[in-house]
Every structure is written in C-alpha cells, then in structure tokens.
C-alpha cells in the first residue's frame, strides 16, 4: 500500500475511463446499420450451400434420377428417409423408387444424403420457410420431393 500504487488502484476502481470508452462504443453502434430483417417484407436469402428442405432431381428426359440404391438412407444419421424400390421401366437402370418419403421433422439437415448419393439425385435446397398444419404434412413423399 505505498503511495502511488494505492492511488492508482483507488482511481482505477472508479471505472470512469472504461465507462466512457464503452459509451463511445455504444454511441457508434447506435448509428451503424442494423442486422434485423423485417421478415414478411424482407426475406432472408440464404447463401449457396445452405442446407434447407430436400428435392429429388430429374434428368434431361424428365425421369427421376434416383435408382433406389439406399445409399442416402444408409448415410442418414437421423433415419428419416424411407425408400421402396421397384423395377425400372427404362433399360439403363435396374430400379426406380416407388415410395420415397423423408420425414422432415426427424431430419437434421446435415446433408449426408446429398453427399452419399452416387447419382446426384437428391439435393438440399435453400428453402427454409415452408410450414405445415399437421405432422403428416411435414413427411414429404416422392411426388412432393420431385415437384421442386
């Protein structure tokens, strides 16, 4: 507790310079642009690579690309994908999906299905705002997945 150290500690504990620094900071922040989007009027556009709801792709002839190989179902950590394969009407593949449902309430949007797919048939879109009025509506079937 010698002279100078005491007074320094004493005045430090007044916190005044720090308070003023902080208030200068918040004053600047007050006038800076805000991050908030006014939602219904302004919609957030996700950057490319955002993992939203799924879609199944079609090839150039409009046929479903999926060959019901079950790779995505195997890769899925949430086990939200259900696939039933059926015989293919086309000569270049053995199977096509007859049933393909994704339970989006179970899905954790990790994108593993997209990475696992050998045919580049499933994809996560940037859609994130779709709502449903029942749990069943959030279980997307083949038709819904292909319609995107």
């Amino acid at each position, binding site marked *: 507790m010698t002279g100078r150290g005491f007074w320094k500690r004493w005045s430090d504990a*007044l916190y005044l310079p720090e308070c003023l620094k902080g208030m200068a900071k918040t004053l600047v922040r007050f006038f800076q642009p805000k991050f908030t989007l006014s939602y219904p009027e302004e919609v957030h556009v996700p950057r490319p690579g955002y993992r939203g709801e799924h879609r199944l792709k079609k090839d150039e002839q409009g046929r479903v690309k999926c060959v019901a190989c079950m790779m995505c179902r195997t890769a899925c950590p949430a086990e939200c994908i259900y696939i039933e394969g059926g015989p293919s009407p086309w000569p270049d593949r053995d199977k096509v999906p007859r049933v393909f449902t994704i339970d989006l309430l179970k899905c954790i949007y990790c994108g593993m299905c997209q990475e696992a797919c050998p045919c580049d048939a499933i994809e996560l879109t940037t859609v994130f705002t779709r709502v449903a009025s029942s749990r069943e509506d959030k279980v997307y079937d083949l038709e819904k997945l292909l319609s995107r």
Partner: protein
Amino acid sequence: MASVLKMLFALGFAVGLVPVAVYLERRVSAFIQGRLGPNRVNIPLIGRLGGILPGGLAQPVADVVKLLFKEDIIPLRADRVLFLLAPLLVFLPPAVGFAVIPFGNRIGDEALQVADLNVGILFTVSILSVSVYGLAFAGWASDNKYSIMGGLRAAAQLLSYEVTLGLCVVTALMFSESLDPRTIVERQARGILGWNILGGGDLWRAPFGIVAGLLFFIAALAENKRLPFDLPECDAELVGGFHTEYSSMKFALFFMGEYVGMVLMSALWVTFFWGGWHLPGVTDPSSATLLQGILSVLVFSAKVLAVLLLYIWVRWTLPRFRYDQLMDLGWKRLIPIALANLVAVAALGALRGGPR
C-alpha cells in the same frame, strides 16, 4: 383552479413520460445492439402518418394492456397487507416528489410549480427515502428467498447512495444559497455559465460543479436501481429480486415506479445542476407571458428527456457491478469524493469572501 391544473400537469408529466421512456428504452437498446426493436404496434387510426412517425409508438399501450389482463397472484403465505402496500409505496413517493419541482418559469402571477416550498429540497430528499420501505416490504412480504435478498439489497444500496446524493445536493445548494428549488433555478437563469454544473456563475467553482453533477448522476442511477447498479432485481442472480412474486398490475406499479423515479431524478438533476427550465436564447427569466411560460416548460421537458436518454444509454452500455464492488464504490470512493468536493466548495467560498 390554477393549482389543480398544475397538479394535473405535474402528475401527467411524471406518469406521461413513463411510456415515452419505455418506448425509448426498447428502441434505443435495440439500436445499440444492432436490432430494430418493436416497430409494428402503431397508433390506431393514424398509424405512422405516412412514414412521419417512427413505428411501434403504441407498444407501451400494448404492454399495459397485456399487464392488465394477466392473472393477479398473491402467494398463499405472503403477508397480504404489506404485499399490497409495497407497490404503492414504490410508485407514489416519486410521483409526489414532483410537487416541488419547478417545471417552468411563470405565467402571469402563477409560478409553474405545484408547491413553492422554501424547504423543497428537504421535502424531495425525504420523500425519496420512503420508497426504500416499499422495496423492503415487497421483499419481506413475498415470503420468497429471492425477494428478501432483493429487498435487503435494495435497502442497503439505496441508503448508501442517498448519502452521496445528499452531499451533491448540498454542493448545489451552496452554489445557489437556497433550499427552495424555484430560487435555485432562478439563480441559475443567467446564461449557461450560471448553471450549477459550471459553478453557478463563478468559473472557479466549475470543476467542483462538474464533479458534484457527475456524482449526483451516478448516485441517481443507484437510487433508481438502474444498471449498472440494478442488484436489487438482477435477473441472473435473484430471478426478479423484490418483485419476483408480483404479477399483473402490481408488477406494473413497480415498473412504473422505477420509471417515474427515473423521471423525478432526471428532473432533480436538471433542476439542481442544469439550469432547470432555463436555456439562454430561448427562455427569458424576467418575462411572464404565456408563450414564455410554455417555452420554459418545453425546455424543461427537453432537458428531462435528454437525461432519460442518458440513463438508457448508460444502462445498455455498462455491465452490472458485483455487490461488494457496489458498496466499495459507494462508501470508499463516491462519498469521500463528494465530501472532499463539498469541503473544497466551502473553503473556496470562505477564501473568496462570500458569493460573487
């Protein structure tokens, strides 16, 4: 008749500024944090008047409606009498304190002040102490460990900082040589250099005026339980502190009491240190016309509003003190400084041979 009007105005001023302060609080805090804040609830029928008004002006009304319709719960083991008395004791004293604040110069022979008490300062300071009882009662009557901690903290904090507050007020009234708020303002109504924050007309005293003014504001923050001194109700430690068990309108009374207290403290600061209703070039202290009277009220309101903004700005900048730091700051720093300041002002006055 005139005094009834003045009473209504003073009460309306105190209570009417509450929604304004609430709105400002929410919008300013949002802006500081990079958000927009409530901007959807507009005034019915006129809305935003085609973009002239900012959005969300009716948000405080919506808040009040929400509070009114909430269930009013009194805990089974609460002390009912004290439990009901406490919100009133918190809300009423600051509202009553407005009786002696001169909110304007004069219109004709009517001084714009409800009661021209010659001991007005003593009246306000004593009336302010009453709200400590409200807080302590609320904490005790709730029969809740968080509440009683909050009540105890409130009592200790308010008592500690009242000392600093009182010493700073004494400094101001040594500048003005009066206990009458009206006289204090009139003494300051000689240009900006006449304001007590700048020494009340004597530049030698300006440093002491600034110190006293600053300490008064810090003590006022603590008296209003505002951040960084909101320990009586800090949510992180005490849920809601002394008002944990209060709901509906009783909670609203605590809430309004806090804001009315803020308005009163701002008004006191403005009166004691910032020249009250006077602003050079706008108000003319010697004139008693209607226009001048209204102008002086407007100047006073603008000053109070500016101080409220400062309150809000401080709140959303500074983190909360620890309780021992709070007591350290109060007893080991603010009170010695305020005392030394007071002694210096007295010594200066004695050395330089009386006023001016």
